[in-house]
């Protein structure tokens, strides 16, 4: 294989290369970083974010955005937490949480397709309403969950933490849906051009409604996975998770303009990259003031590299046409 071809392929995997570099640097700085336990920890800690970001990827692929995922995590967590504290079985709380996520996602989608309101505005409203509702129900107090919840978070199957298994299943199913189903192809088509997708006979409203439902459901599930590790739903739970979910998806190569991106490896690696940096900084006991600086610089670099590539591709297209 000639050098230009290798470089071209490497450029296409910049996020994976960056993840490898981050792992290499932190491993050199601290022997405690390159261990099976640490990698399991990174996977475990990234599991909630990855699931939420998976739903976000579907929405971003249609050129939409969902700012309400953090609030959905919170309100679904509070309601199911209150039910469990009130005596509902933990295992019944799981479907209840998912149904709540689906309902909230359906509300977002319905307003987007029925009233043609910009997704940013609809989900911003849900963002405030959801958090307000959660605070009202919880009376701004932490909902402390019974130990069974923590047992779900710390359960292992063949040595692999249950949240990690759930994350892998969600990522795999999502990528299969995007790659192998008619709906998946329609998602990309809608993101590339809504006008052309309608002309091609795609039911635009149905596709949009479904992606917001998927996003709501993933937010609730991601929240549940995080709560199972925390054992409590605090009034700040899920706050700013929407930004981390968007960052993970965009770092993974999903375009904010729609039509381009993948859950695997893209979004998964994006979430792992964020968590690997956070984990590495704690392990090397970095100065706390350096955290936002380093994380921000890395996110900026990867977005810069990707936008340059996107710009060059557009230029090439312009030349060829």
């Amino acid at each position, binding site marked *: 294989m000639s050098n230009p071809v290798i470089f071209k392929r490497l450029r296409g995997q910049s996020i994976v290369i960056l993840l490898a570099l981050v792992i290499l640097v932190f491993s050199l700085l*601290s022997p*405690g970083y390159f*261990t099976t*336990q*640490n990698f399991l*920890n990174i996977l*475990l*800690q990234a599991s*909630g974010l990855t699931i939420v970001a998976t739903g976000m990827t579907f929405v971003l692929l249609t050129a939409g955005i969902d700012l309400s995922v953090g609030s959905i995590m919170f309100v679904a967590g509070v309601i199911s937490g209150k039910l469990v504290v009130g005596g509902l079985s933990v295992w019944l709380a799981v479907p209840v949480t998912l149904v709540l996520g689906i309902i909230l996602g359906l509300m977002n989608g319905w307003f987007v397709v029925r009233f043609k309101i910009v997704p940013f505005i609809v989900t911003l409203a849900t963002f*405030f309403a959801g*958090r307000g509702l959660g*605070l009202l129900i919880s*009376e*701004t*107090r*932490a909902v*402390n969950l019974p130990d069974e919840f*923590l047992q779900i*978070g*710390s359960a292992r199957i063949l040595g692999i933490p249950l949240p990690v298994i759930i994350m892998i299943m969600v990522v795999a199913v999502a990528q299969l849906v995007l790659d192998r189903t008619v709906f998946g192809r329609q998602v990309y088509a809608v993101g590339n051009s809504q006008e052309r997708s309608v002309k091609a006979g795609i039911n635009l409203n149905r596709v949009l409604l479904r992606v917001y439902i998927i996003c709501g459901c993933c937010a609730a599930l991601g929240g549940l996975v*995080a709560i199972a*590790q*925390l*054992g*409590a739903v*605090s*009034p*700040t*739970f899920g*706050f*700013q998770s929407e930004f981390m979910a968007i960052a993970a998806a965009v770092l993974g190569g999903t375009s904010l303009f729609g039509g381009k991106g993948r859950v695997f490896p893209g979004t998964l690696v994006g979430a792992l990259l964020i*968590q690997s940096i*956070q*984990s590495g900084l*704690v*392990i090397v*006991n970095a*100065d*706390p*003031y350096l*955290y936002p600086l380093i994380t921000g610089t890395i996110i900026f670099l990867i977005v810069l590299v990707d936008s340059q590539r996107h710009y060059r591709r557009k230029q090439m297209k312009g030349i060829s046409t």
Partner: protein
Amino acid sequence: MLFRYYWSLLVIVGCLTAGCAAKEEGTVIGISFETLQTEYWVASIEAMKSVCEENGVGYLEAVANGDANRQFEQVNNFISRGVDGIVIAPKDAHTVIPIIKAANRAGIPIAIYNRLPAENEGDYITVVADNYEISRNTVEYMAEVARESGKKHKAMILIGDLGDINAVNRRRGFDDALAAHKDLIEVVAEVPTEWNQEKALAGVTNALQVNPDIDFIFSSSDFLFPSVVSALKNADKYHPIGHPDHVILGGFDGDAMAYRMLREKYLDADGVQDVFFECQESVLAVIRKMREEQVPDLIVDPGFVIHQQNLEQKAESMWGASF
């Protein structure tokens, strides 16, 4: 038809404007909170409302949900409604300055609750807990407990949002307290949490993984305790006082979970902000200022440290005990 719509709209806008401009009857204080997203803030606003009621003063309340601009608008709204005094729990030390200026221009007394404003020329009263001293005393108590154990310890601190002056002062208090115990306690992990429980959980888990012998943890806020407890349980290190593998635990705030952990003998010490004192002083300072009485510019809540030895005596003053 269109005329009717515009006419209705005009009537509604007119009513709202008249309502906004109308002077509130009796003495009214505007209470503005940056957020209500922790138990501490809820306990605070409830305490302030009680103090107002006890003193026969009416109140308007507003919550900015973490948005400094919105808080500025809400305070301007208080001013246009003709409140007699303002008590504000600001977003941060800097964004409160234009709010102080606006209140000063309107000649309305203003008290700043819980966060010390950055240096400015304004006329205001600050009621604030001595975050540095309370943290230092709490960690000092924890260090004494560590010394009594007769063995060396490895310590971790959970730091709050470094843009929050209270978080910075709590960290300083921790550092200065342990500076005198370097022979005994080594700080091996500083975990920034940005006041986020998920980040706290990940940070504590990672720190415990690299330093499994950490046995001394100070959390800059009690509301991060669920994360600490979860990480300790996962590492099989959550044991009550008296157990040979007990991790010396300390916190700051005095919330309900800290109170429960003290009662259950998992928590060694907690730095308590005296919410009742601070809220009472904030409201009374504004009332005194309205009556043109002399009020100090700075009222400091010395707080106190609650621990296993003084739990029974101090529990009544711990706001989390009754929350």
